[in-house]
């Protein structure tokens, strides 16, 4: 009964991830990223406990609110993914299909390899049992990881980098839930804390970027320390604080 709903939630998480990377407005992107991390907590078979869901909800709301607040004064458009809306949607669809197929294949391999030795409540049991929710979770994790790859590996914008990390956290939690590895309410609470702290860190970075540069772009950090290098005669007039 719940399976179609959970698959729909997985699709919504994918859509939120697309918004996080493709929306030009940084506020909408923030909403997309933290919605993805919240929806990702629900795509699990069996469903997480109420306490775990509340913890994840609190973590996502707190982290998102901090980033939203820090974006006050930010430009209305920032460096979104070069793919744009159509490209991001296409990549997401392809990654979802690949993730689904990979999950199915992996589940079948585990089921064949383990055979009768596989019992419930052990890592990989739901996947080997052909759970659609587990496959959807792995497919969603693949989408979020692919969408987050570019802003995390090649960051140009501090805000988008942070949102990419939030998407990666969502992907990691989906993977844990789908594989049934170490299921625990305390782990869910730890994920919630990690999301909230990551949001706080992103908010601090965004505020610092806006304070120093007026935008969200990451400037070069490799400038050498002028107080240390061998000085030329005219170095005394350089700005040492930069």
């Amino acid at each position, binding site marked *: 009964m719940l399976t179609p709903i959970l698959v729909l939630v997985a699709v919504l998480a994918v859509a939120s991830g697309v918004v996080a990377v493709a929306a030009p407005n940084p506020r909408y992107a923030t909403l997309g990223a933290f919605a993805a991390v919240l929806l990702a907590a629900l795509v699990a078979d069996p469903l997480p406990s109420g306490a775990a869901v509340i913890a994840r909800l609190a973590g996502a709301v707190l982290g998102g609110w901090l980033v939203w607040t820090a974006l006050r004064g930010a430009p209305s458009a920032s460096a979104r993914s070069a793919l744009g809306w159509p490209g991001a949607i296409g990549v997401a669809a392809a990654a979802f299909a690949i993730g689904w197929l990979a999950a199915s294949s992996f589940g079948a391999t585990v089921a064949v390899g383990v055979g009768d030795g596989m019992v419930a409540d052990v890592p*990989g049991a739901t996947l080997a049992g052909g759970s659609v929710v587990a496959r959807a979770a792995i497919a969603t994790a693949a989408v979020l990881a692919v969408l987050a790859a570019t802003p995390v590996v090649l960051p140009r914008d*501090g805000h988008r980098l*942070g949102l990419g990390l939030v998407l*990666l956290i969502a992907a990691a939690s989906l*993977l*844990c839930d789908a594989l049934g590895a170490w299921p625990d309410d*305390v782990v869910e609470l*730890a994920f919630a804390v990690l999301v909230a702290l990551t949001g706080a860190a992103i908010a601090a970075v965004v505020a610092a970027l806006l304070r*120093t540069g007026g935008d969200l772009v990451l400037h070069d950090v490799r400038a050498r320390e002028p*107080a240390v290098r061998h000085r030329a005669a005219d170095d005394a007039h350089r700005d040492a604080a930069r």
Partner: protein
Amino acid sequence: MTLAALLAVGAVGAVGSGWALGRGGSASRLGAIGGVLCLVLIALLAALSPTPATLTADATGAVAGTLWNGALVPGAYLRVVIVLWSAASVVVAGVAWLLRGTDGLRGLLPATLAALVGTAVTLAASSPVLGVVAAGATGLASVPVVLASPRAAAAAIAAREVRIAVATALVVLAVASVAPVLERLIFANPDGPASSPGSGTAAAIAFGLLAIALVVAARVGAIPYHVRVSALTDLVAPGSLPLVAAWLPLPLAVVAVGVVAGVLAPLKPPVGSAQALIIAATLLATLAAALVALIQDDLRHAVGYLTIADLGFVILAIASLDPLLWGPARTWLLMVAVTKTALAVWAAVVENRFETRSVPELRGWLRPSPLLGCALLLIVLATYGLPGWAVMNARVALAGHGAGGPWDAALLVAPILLTLPAYVRWLWLGMGAATSHVDRATPELAGMSKLPTRRLALTPPARGRNAGLPIEQEHSDTPVSATPGWLAAPAGGAPDRATQAGTATRTTTAAPDAEAEPHPTTPVLDVRPGTGVGVRGRTGRTGRGTASAMTASAAPTAAAQLALPAATPAADEPAVPTPRRALRATSGADAAAQAADTIKRHRTGLLSGAVLALALLASLVAFGAFDVASAACEPVPGISACS
């Protein structure tokens, strides 16, 4: 209960000190005091926390001393790490305060407390996933330290710190999640493990092993991921370097080694080529870092590279896939953290004392600084140890078991031979003829009893939150509003020259538009009887100015004449009996101010003593005190290989 109290004290202390230190004024001082008290309390709570051997279950089956039904179990290693870290942090906080006042603690204290909480959760976690997530959150503690810097590059560097903290943890998390499924797959075969060379399972395990080695290398800053550490050494306050470079990588490295030892190693995968690749890369990275440390003229960078060279050694424990290296790896990580804390603080004090971080300009530093010399010798001893010491045993175990075959000798000897010359170079330079930087520095021992340092602020006065603080000005009964010299970082400011003892006349200059600039450079005079006067430039930006290459003489115009008296009061007397000071004395309500005056007079000796204390602590840990080695070998719940 003790663990819960520890976590509560750390969390409250982090939030409270972070909030108060950012407000300035008396709130800042209260925040600093509160933060240090929290550190002390955490050390006490950690020392009193029960070990698994002493845990007992009550009638309901719940084990006292654990949290959340055994999700967090305090262990001996946790206790040692937290006690040593918090104890060292108290000393580091004192040094940071002496170097930069409460501005030096902004970022450092809340980040340290938060990191202690995160590390406690990480080390107490009974499941690898919980440990990895907590380690990722712990890495975020570097953000407030980085953002405490006023430099424009701080935001970009902080963003990269967030990335390295979260992304590395998530990679380890992915491996820790997939590995149990692979374990089922491998051991389900009734004819034996289904993993064979070239099989898909073996390839997956090799991929996971490489991923973990890669992220640990990135987290510790091993070459080629060293640019992050290099930028951090330039950016963060010198007192914060031990935290971001040596302590924060520890939780993730410990968890990564635990995942390898407890999850991957039992699979006994045939991944020899991946292991060889990791060992070769580790050897190259370690040698490269050691070589760069040797030729590096920037003292901070050299310390960073020495830290990288030693921390990277732990990757051998990952490459080995040997559960027996669980203990030596954790011992090694703790040794490196404690030793490099002492080294980084030594470098910070040297930089502050001689107003330069250029190694060639430090020639002759050893003669006026015998305590710092002793400290450096102890640090070297703690870094390498002697046969039978815990640090030497850990190094031999990592090199021998980690690499084996023809690699072990190279991995044991080469890093020593390449990192040792960096220390020897510093000591050798210290015995040379003194440079002008060294010549004008306050003597270490004489400064404690005979040579009080008084700084006179010239115009323009400082602004911002320190604008109300008094400074005595020459031949004036009216205190001038400015930042006290001992509160601000004088690093980088270079005095022009010392003048004759007694009456000194000094011509100094200031920028013509100094009054119009938002953060003017305030020249500060060091007055020492018998040694003369030095003028140093300092950015007046609320005391948070970083090392400045500008000196008063470098500014083009606006000369000012200053006459100095023939003598200054004795060390045990107030420097200048200004009305403000007299008011303090008559009120009798400011014993703290008198204590601060005493600390100011003894600042040089106190700094050296603090470094010596940290070096002694490092030596004791390297020797094997506090039962570090056995605590590190303690089996941890959830890590089956160590049970």
